[in-house]
């Protein structure tokens, strides 16, 4: 392994630490900097992106990663950074898409008083995510893992005066902690099994693990990934996380943090390749999430929630992909998804901002004419996510589902194909409801079948507005990769994508050992057909001429006819509430009602009472009466007599 040049080492350290510097500066000087702090923060992230590009040009391969040891303690505890193709890809996305979202957020959060605190948190998040992906050891990864969860908590609950935001942040954090437990268990198990925390050492010794140990570790890792990446049943926090500002949703809950689980599985590819049962599990759970997310997306009325469930579904695709061993496909889907999901969220943000915080699609409509830029942005993103031919998602989604078939999982393949159709349906439902037909902002809630709400868009206030280009330029820039990112995969195993990764993920055994029932080209046509069917159904229900004129009645009817399962999100929230939240709250209440006053306070009180008792006893000895003192003398003498009578005088 060639030693890294001092220049590359410096670049890597800089790009990792600059966001931290930004966070510290903004935390410290936030009140003084205010809006200019946002520019500082965005600039730092963009500089990190530039540095990453420089390193990218320098070229890395899995056999020659850029390694930067940082701290070395005893007994194999060496922390350091490593830049190999996998982490470089993630770094590019984090700093690149992150940088664009930072710029966008300058415009979005322009009139918010706490803008400096927001950017401090955003920079901190970027630093944490970089720590996660750049570590060359499990402990550094764990540190990044935890910090990312913390950043998510900060950012979801950014508007902390909203109780719903606080509750959502808490929920996200608690569910993430479940994953953290799995992660820690895996770290401990790996360290005790190999005596080292570095990935290299662990992967080298992985062949010696017993199958049960492998499965246990993979299971623990998967629990961590499931919590962070919102897989079933740990997915309930993701829709609620939309309480955060839209840039947060774009960056953390679409492009980067929720993909940490995918990164984890991809990073531990050598381990996963050795444990087919774990791969089976990962594939099944990923597929389940994929299907569930899509089904739930059908019944949502909040534009951000539609996108949240679509995120959940797409990550299900990614997890399914890397879970079964189709690493390059899964990671490709992460790559393309980062672009088009960010695009979708940022576009939604433009709409929400323009409509003064209206998020319900029932109150939108006809925005194609009023906001053409947002329309084209959202349309491109939607076409990408549906896998429309020649858009980025087309290549990545096909790769994923076909990869599932290649690795011997026909049922997962089927699920993926059908879900693609459902995805097309609900995404185009959104497009038609938002951008076509008459504008429904003035229609009353009753006519639309909405509950007369607590949530109402506030009237246009005379607040300062950011220059429009701040929000539009990032979206425009994202349009290119939204369309084109998938082209890197053209050529399959000889594509630039495959050559970039080389042997990063090892060779997965069960490829090409089974006869493939469907050749790849046929699979592509099947997927296209299903997607087209979805779009057509959506068109008929929402986009056709007749549908648009009677939109208000249709919306009201749909609201009434919404199936209970969709209305209650398959009751996951209710079950978790009953199983875990209520007992925990009851326990807390019992402790505060009983243990606190009667045990803890009573303990302290009793100690004080005991001290008083001793004091009273001692006080009784000093009554000033000679007779009492004489009695004390006699008692002392009696003690001596007893002692000498029993023990005997000293010889």
């Amino acid at each position, binding site marked *: 392994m060639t030693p890294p040049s001092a220049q590359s080492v410096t670049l890597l350290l800089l790009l990792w630490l600059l966001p931290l510097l930004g966070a510290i500066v903004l935390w410290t000087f936030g009140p003084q900097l205010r809006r200019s702090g946002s520019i500082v923060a965005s600039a730092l992230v963009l500089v990190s992106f530039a540095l990453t590009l420089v390193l990218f040009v320098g070229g890395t391969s899995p056999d020659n990663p850029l390694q930067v040891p940082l701290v070395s303690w005893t007994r194999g505890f060496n922390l350091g950074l490593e830049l190999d193709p996998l982490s470089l890809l993630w770094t590019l996305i984090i700093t690149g898409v992150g940088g664009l979202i930072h710029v966008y957020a300058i415009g979005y959060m322009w009139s918010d008083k706490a803008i400096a605190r927001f950017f401090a948190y955003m920079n901190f998040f970027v630093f944490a995510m970089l720590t996660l992906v750049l570590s060359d050891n499990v402990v550094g990864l764990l540190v990044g893992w935890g910090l990312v969860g913390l950043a998510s908590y900060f950012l979801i609950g950014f508007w902390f005066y909203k109780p719903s935001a606080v509750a959502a942040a808490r929920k996200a954090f608690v569910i993430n902690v479940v994953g953290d437990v799995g992660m820690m268990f895996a770290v401990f198990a790996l360290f005790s099994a190999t005596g080292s925390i570095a990935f290299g050492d662990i992967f080298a010794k992985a062949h010696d693990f017993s199958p049960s140990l492998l499965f246990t570790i993979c299971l623990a890792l998967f629990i961590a990934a499931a919590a962070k990446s919102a897989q079933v049943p740990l997915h309930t926090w993701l829709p609620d996380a939309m309480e955060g500002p839209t840039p947060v949703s774009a960056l953390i809950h679409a492009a980067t943090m929720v993909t940490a689980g995918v990164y984890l599985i991809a990073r531990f590819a050598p381990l996963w390749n050795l444990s087919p049962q774990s791969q089976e599990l990962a594939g099944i759970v990923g597929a389940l999430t994929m299907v569930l997310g899509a089904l739930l997306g059908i019944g949502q009325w909040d534009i951000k929630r539609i996108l949240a469930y679509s995120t959940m579904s797409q990550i299900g695709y990614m997890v399914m992909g890397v879970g079964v061993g189709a690493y390059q496909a899964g990671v490709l889907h992460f790559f393309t998804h980062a672009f088009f999901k960010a695009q979708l969220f940022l576009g939604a943000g433009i709409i929400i901002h323009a409509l003064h915080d209206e998020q319900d699609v029932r109150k939108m409509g006809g925005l194609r004419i009023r906001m053409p830029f947002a329309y084209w942005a959202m349309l491109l993103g939607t076409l990408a996510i549906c896998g429309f031919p020649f858009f980025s998602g087309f290549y990545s989604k096909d790769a994923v589902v076909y990869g599932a078939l290649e690795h011997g999982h026909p049922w997962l393949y089927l699920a993926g194909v059908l879900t693609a159709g459902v995805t097309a349906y609900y995404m185009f439902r959104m497009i038609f409801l938002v951008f076509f037909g008459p504008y429904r902002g003035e229609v009353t809630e009753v006519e639309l079948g909405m509950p007369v709400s607590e949530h109402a868009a506030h009237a246009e206030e005379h607040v300062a507005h950011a220059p429009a280009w701040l929000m539009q330029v990032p979206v425009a820039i994202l349009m290119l990769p939204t369309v084109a990112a998938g082209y890197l995969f053209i050529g399959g195993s000889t594509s630039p994508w495959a050559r970039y990764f080389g042997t990063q993920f090892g060779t997965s055994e069960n490829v090409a050992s089974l006869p493939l029932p469907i050749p790849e080209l046929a699979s592509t046509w099947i997927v296209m057909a299903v997607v087209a069917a979805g779009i057509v159904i959506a068109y008929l229900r929402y986009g056709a001429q007749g549908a648009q004129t009677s939109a208000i009645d249709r919306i009201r009817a749909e609201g009434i006819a919404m199936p209970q399962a969709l209305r209650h999100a398959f009751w996951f929230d209710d079950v978790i509430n009953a199983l875990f939240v209520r007992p925990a709250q009851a326990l807390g209440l019992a402790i505060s009602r009983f243990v606190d006053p009667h045990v803890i306070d009573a303990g302290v009180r009793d100690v004080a009472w005991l001290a008083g008792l001793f004091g009273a006893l001692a006080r009784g000895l000093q*009554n000033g009466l*000679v*007779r009492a003192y*004489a*009695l004390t003398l006699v008692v002392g003498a009696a003690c001596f007599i007893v002692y000498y009578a029993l023990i005997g005088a000293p010889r």
Partner: protein
Amino acid sequence: MADIANYVALSALVFFIGVAGVVLRRNPLIVLMSIELMLNAANLALVAFSRAWVNNAGHIFVFLVITVAAAEAAIGLAIVVAAFRKARFVDVDEVASLRG
């Protein structure tokens, strides 16, 4: 002479009677007399042992004790006189200014 143990036991008994007097009586004069009783009980034991060993050092010590007892009685009575010169009650419980 009778067995030495008898003398020691007798001495102990009289000693404890004196202790009872010191602790339980409230008239200071009776208390001082009880103290004399205790000292004499000790003297008895000393003389008995002196006789058992046929060694007159015990006698010398008794001499010393008698002297000390006399001095102590004198001073004790002087204190009683000084303390209760103008008192209403001649009671040991009244001199409790060391209380607290």
